[in-house]
């Protein structure tokens, strides 16, 4: 197999340089050549073998051999000269008509491999380089201050939806601004990549935008405690107090009670103190406090709560705990052992 990784004219690099394919990473040939990575794709793609050969720029060797054999046959059987060119033409026309089919199969196959590749170590690294260069655009939301977005799919099954942009700052998804991306299948990026990216690179300074963030990797100190597996400053930095749009009429805020009043502010809300979100830990603390003394349980809580929701929130968790499931109990035990 010819590994022409450096040549600019490989199928993969020409595919990635097409208009509208700016989001794609170049899948390495080693990744594609590993059969394990392609498990199950045979059944999803028509003309799988030909498509794979096209992606890898492998000359269809078998066909050439067949040609040779045919020629030999023709030579052997004299008097069939009329038949020869006709058969050859038929053969060529088959190739020509199949080429477009194979091409589209190859694109589909590449997309599905791409979905897996960008979740691999090498792939996510390559995507992070693209992210740093701002290849995926920025969040259109005003309060996200041009946070760079990540391409995601809303489904892992091809043909269901086009590619969307996930903003790590507001944890929401947006339609790409340019219509040329509306032909790119979301499944080629998959549902996993966006969230996995944030988990893989927790040190990214998401609040910084543009090119300046390129140097921010590995800069943050580890002294900052993580909450729920993320650095607090990276948990939806575009949400919370002062990041919520407040409608006003001539300077007066529109009341929540009005028919046209704000009803969606929760979507952009975030607790002032993110420690509230550490449910397992909170539960463990509260549980201890409860077992010690019932009255003590709002001691360290009222000062952290915002709009008094913390107490209510905890009560919700308590109810949940009481009613169904041991999920929280398991969490609590896990956290308890850590404490």
């Amino acid at each position, binding site marked *: 197999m010819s590994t022409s990784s450096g040549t600019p004219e490989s199928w993969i690099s020409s595919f990635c340089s097409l208009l509208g394919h700016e989001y794609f990473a170049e899948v390495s040939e080693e990744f594609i050549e590993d059969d394990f990575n392609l498990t*199950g794709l045979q059944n999803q793609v028509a003309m799988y073998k030909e498509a794979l050969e096209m992606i890898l720029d492998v000359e269809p060797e078998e066909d050439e051999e067949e040609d040779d054999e045919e020629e030999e046959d023709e030579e052997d059987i004299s008097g069939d000269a009329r038949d020869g060119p006709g058969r050859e033409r038929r053969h060529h026309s088959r190739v020509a008509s199949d080429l477009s089919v194979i091409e589209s199969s190859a694109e589909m196959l590449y997309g599905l491999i791409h*979905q897996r590749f960008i979740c691999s170590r090498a792939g996510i690294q390559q995507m992070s380089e693209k992210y740093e260069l701002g290849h995926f655009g920025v969040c*259109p939301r005003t309060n996200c201050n041009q946070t760079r977005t990540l391409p995601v799919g809303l489904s892992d099954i091809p043909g269901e939806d086009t590619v969307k942009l996930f903003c790590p700052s507001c944890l929401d998804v947006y339609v790409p601004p340019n219509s040329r991306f509306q032909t790119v299948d979301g499944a080629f990026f998959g549902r996993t990549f966006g969230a996995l990216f944030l988990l893989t690179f927790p040190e990214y300074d998401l609040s910084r935008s543009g090119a300046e963030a390129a140097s921010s990797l590995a800069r943050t100190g580890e002294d900052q405690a993580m909450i729920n597996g993320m650095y607090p400053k990276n948990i939806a930095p575009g949400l919370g107090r002062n990041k919520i749009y407040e409608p006003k009429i001539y300077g007066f805020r529109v009341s929540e009670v009005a028919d046209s009043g704000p009803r969606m502010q929760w979507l952009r809300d975030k607790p002032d103190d993110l420690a509230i979100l550490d449910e397992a830990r909170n539960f463990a603390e509260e549980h201890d406090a409860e077992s010690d003394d019932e009255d003590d349980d709002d001691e360290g809580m009222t000062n952290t709560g915002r709009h008094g929701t913390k107490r209510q929130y905890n009560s919700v968790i308590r109810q949940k705990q009481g009613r169904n499931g041991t999920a929280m109990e398991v969490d609590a035990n896990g956290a308890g052992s850590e404490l």
Partner: protein
Amino acid sequence: MDDYGTESDSDYTSYWRDWFISSRGNEYFCEIDEEYLTDRFNLTGLNTEVQYYQYAMDLITDVFDLDCDDEMRETIEKSARHLYGLVHARYIASTRGLTKMLEKYKKADFGKCPRVMCNSHPLLPLGLSDIPNLKPVKLYCARCEDTYNPKSSRHASIDGAYFGTSFHSILFQVYPTLVPAKSQERYVPRVYGFKVHAAAALVRWQNSVRGDMRRRLRKMEVDSGFKDGEDDLEDEDEDEEEIDEEEELQMQLQQHQLVEYRGGATAATGALVPVAAGDAQMGGVA
């Protein structure tokens, strides 16, 4: 703001306002009535804001006949556009202006919300400040109640004060029936089908905030405007978090048979959604 080439050869006799609103980049503006412009009450205070106020006004109302050089004319043109913008901010809050902007809103002249869950809901222009030359125009989505940057750079340079901070709120105060139904639908980040802890914890907290709000509103007997998730007031601790949206709907339908509700906008949720189990996608990724 724009190039001057087109303006300098604009015909004196053609209507300046027609030309203005039809020129590229000015798609967000509507045409101000002659009557509104000539009523001096509507222009209170603008004479100190705009240079060559009278000439600019003459130009807007097509009675400009000053003989002057190109440079002067350009300055006046610029003033005229500024003045038009400032009057525009006032005009679109008036009854006539609201109807005109409403037409444009219905045609989605201001673009559509980029948020996926808003399903291309039409946007409305807004300013983040009423003082000119501070902040460019933004777009407001009435469905998610958030503001977005215009897609096109030629719109991103328009002054937000030409639309004002209050316009979209006034529009929905005047036409409360046009307030779109709110939706709880949202994006939940997942890794191989599993929710991510940090994001999911935030979602749970946000859901509790929403539940608080809806309970508050219900106590005051105000319609919260949510077409889905009518039941999360009492049962949010049960059904909201761990269950996919489809299943959630299904759950609500079941609960409906058990619990009676008085604020009955629930019919909207009655559209039966087949339970397409969210776990099915797991197979797609090895």
